């Protein structure tokens, strides 16, 4: 099965489970959790079932295309279901069957891994799923988002698409994954890992990154105050990506790191508060102290 077939099969499978196939959100982000469909979607009391592919960027993980297992840009497949279905674990295991992985022929284990995102003020309880020893999925019951206690709870299932493909295609390098019968992952993303590695580690303008961070941060506050939480949250994502770039450039000291993370968490919370106030005025929720 080719890389694009995994996406097609997962789309088909989760559409059948009632998920809306939302498309990737066109801004840099470190993980699918930053997608507004996940961030805002988990905050309301309304049911929510979505699935989408999300390209993720982790500047610090880029390795000039030299490391077989690590890249700075890769794909997640994310499923959010609220409230969680009772047999959601089995439904997930069946999704693996849909992409050709039969549990009876493999070892699948759930390793405790309580996920946390200090930048989003989010945390959850869950597992890494190991497929014959390889971590292929993060499975989390969100408990908090933007410091709000969630009710109802959302379950987030995040597949590492490259990991899954390497596993089934028996490839030892991400770039060797067959995207189609003729094209590899490396062909599709030719030059990307190398060029972005230079940018992430050497070229990105530190002063620019810092000053943009500050400007956007201020803008988020103004926008959120007016109730424009959607554009405000775009800027939160940009701040978060700038933070990751600064980090890759080695420009953040230990003490500054904590400060910057808190600044992002605070503006994410401002967006969440605006959203909740407008969409769920009756709830009168207060964010927990975080």
């Amino acid at each position, binding site marked *: 099965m080719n890389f694009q077939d995994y996406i097609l099969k997962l789309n088909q499978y989760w559409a059948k489970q009632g998920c809306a196939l939302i498309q990737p959100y066109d801004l840099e982000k470190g993980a699918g959790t930053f997608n507004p469909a996940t961030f805002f979607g988990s905050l309301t009391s309304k049911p929510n079932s979505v699935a989408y592919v999300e390209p993720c960027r982790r500047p610090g993980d880029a390795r000039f295309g030299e490391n077989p297992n690590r890249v700075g840009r890769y794909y997640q497949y994310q499923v959010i279901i609220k409230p969680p279905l009772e047999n959601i674990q089995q439904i997930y295991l069946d999704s693996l069957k849909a992409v050709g992985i039969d549990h*009876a022929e*493999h*070892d*699948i284990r759930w390793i405790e891994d309580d996920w946390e995102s200090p930048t989003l003020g989010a945390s959850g309880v869950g597992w890494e799923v190991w497929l014959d020893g390889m971590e292929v999925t993060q499975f989390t019951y969100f408990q908090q988002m933007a410091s709000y206690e969630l009710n109802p709870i959302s379950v987030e299932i995040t597949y590492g698409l490259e990991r899954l493909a390497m596993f089934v295609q028996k490839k030892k390098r991400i770039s060797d994954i067959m995207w189609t019968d003729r094209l590899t992952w490396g062909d599709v993303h030719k030059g990307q890992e190398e060029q972005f590695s230079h940018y992430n580690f050497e070229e990105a303008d530190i002063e620019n990154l810092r000053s943009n961070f500050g400007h956007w941060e201020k803008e988020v506050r103004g926008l959120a105050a007016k109730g424009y939480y959607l554009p405000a949250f775009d800027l939160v994502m940009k701040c978060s990506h700038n933070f990751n770039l600064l980090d890759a450039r080695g420009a953040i000291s230990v*003490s500054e790191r904590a400060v910057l993370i808190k600044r992002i968490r605070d503006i994410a919370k401002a967006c969440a508060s605006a959203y909740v106030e407008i969409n769920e005025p009756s709830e009168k929720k207060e964010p927990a102290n975080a």
Partner: protein
Amino acid sequence: MLKDALLEIRIENIPARFVISAEEQLKKYAAELLAEANLPCAGIEAYGTYKRLVLHLTGVPAKTEEKTQKSYGPAARLLKDEKGNFTPQAAGFARSRGTTPDKLGVETVPNKGEVLVFETRIPGRPSVKALAEIFPQVISRLQFPKNMVWEKSRFRFARPIRSLLALYGDKPVVFSIAGIKSGRLTVGLSAKGSRPLKISSAEKYFKALEHANVIVKDAERLEMLRREIAALSKRMKLVVEADPELLSENLYLIEYPVCVMAGYSQDFLKLPHELVHLVMKKQLKFFTVADAKGGLQPYFVGIRDGVSKGQRNVEEGFKNVLEARFNDAFFFYNRDLAIPLAEFKAKLAAITFQAKLGTMADKTARVEKLAAWLCGGCGAPLNKEDVTAAAAHVYTDLTTNLVKEFTELQGIMGYYYARNSGMSETASRAVGEFYWPMSAKSPLPSSKEGAIVSLAGKLDTLASDFALGQIPSGSEDPHGLRRQALGAVRIILENGFRLNLRNAVSAAFDQLPAEASGRAADPLLDFIWQRAEVVFAESGYRFDEVKTVREFFMSGGDLLDCRDRVKDVNALRGNPDFAGIAMAFKRAKNILRQAKAPLSGAPDETLFEKDEERALYGDIKAMSGRLQAHVSGRDYAKGLSELLSIKGSLDNFFEKVMVMAEDPKVRDNRLNLIKSLVSLFEGVADLSQLQ
């Protein structure tokens, strides 16, 4: 008729480390609640896997035990009037209990005397009803290190509960909790598709699960796992190292053990073996394999959950993951080996140790200086070159690529990189053993050089935190300072370092940055002393004996000397005169404390009025020279005997001489006399501490 009762809480994969405590709690709460409900049973057992917690009650009767309830009424004399008729009070009480006065009895109750009593018999009720109340309460009481919510009622539990099986014999025990109604359904092994299972009776549960490839009982599962591993060892003619901790962890990752064994490339054995162990045991939970002599062999054993279909897939998958991690490690390790140590050391300047305490480079410089100071101050012959070389690189491995990936190897890798740089074996070991001892009883650095470097690190860390006021209190000790202090004490005692810790601590404070200038030498010395007290007490000395040398320690006495003194105090305690002299000394100290007079120094012999004063002073003068000689020769047993020798004149003095005389001159002179005696005692040990 006695039957079994069974509760199975089926949950989504619960962390291995939660299960054992949950089993204990199941048993405890079940016992409490059964007792409250008057429901006896023959046995209470609990079992667990990663997806079920099971409570098994055996020999449960069909009904709870009948019990009698007594209600007390008015005084017994009010039962009947003079004519022998029941009184209105008696009739009223009987009516209120739904009976007639002729059924009332009489009983003597403390403080009330004889009163009317009525005994109601509460009949037993069906156990299935009682269990329907007990089971949900047991579930609600379970506590876990961390809980979550997942459904509407927001019930909190370690992981989502997915079904509840509850049976008394073949009858369902019906209740609801967390939005789930109990029944007789569960599922089998996950790898076989979690097939639904209907359990016909509590007695058939374990067999039914076994047929569905689930070994519910922990001990049986462990036994199977051990057998499998032993069989593999035999087949391979090698030893699969069945580390108990790893066995227990694997036990709660599976419901039916199947071993997966494969080899990996011999090349990876060139990696430091600590690293191989870390990757295999900690990260992947695989067992290591060794030859008969304990030499690591290129094989691993992993445990999979329940089926042996597709065994080749799993072998290959496990092997790929293992080798990918080894390759990663190799890549970092080889890169690190090619880079000079000095280059890594330079990077320490970019790592903050703690705000106000500078970088790790600053900390390294402090450790280097302090180690040099300790070389001079410890009185032991040392190879100073090794100390200097090692101290310079104690933190260097922090910046290496491998330690950034495998932080647990901090310290251990320091040894390999130091050796690779051409450092002597002793100095390299000193780097690798810098963080030792890792726990209260674990080994100390293997050389005196390593001990000094490790001690320097500990004293700097302690002084740093104390300077910032981060002093452990109660159970709060985030930086593990108690362990550091205990390590320091053990290093000093077991290496025989004759060290003035007061000066050493002072040197550690002296070199802290100006921003961390809070000097807390006394609190730190006292903190270290408290650890020393524990060590001394563990060698069999009593706390009050240990306390006799605390003052001596606080004023700069070395710990070995303290130990010698305590030892002799302990030995002399059996002497019949000892208690007396200790009492007299305590009395002398009390007089001095209460007098609060400024003392001028040695007594003036011309001011003595009584023979007893003169005699005592004569004895003191005669003895003090000998005492000093014993003390400087560290012969405290003889020193203490000298002190005992003046017991006679001291007793006479206290008997005949009134210290607080009217004449201030005479009084002060007597106080000076006592003072000179107290000083002599204190030069050996503060015997007033003895209880």
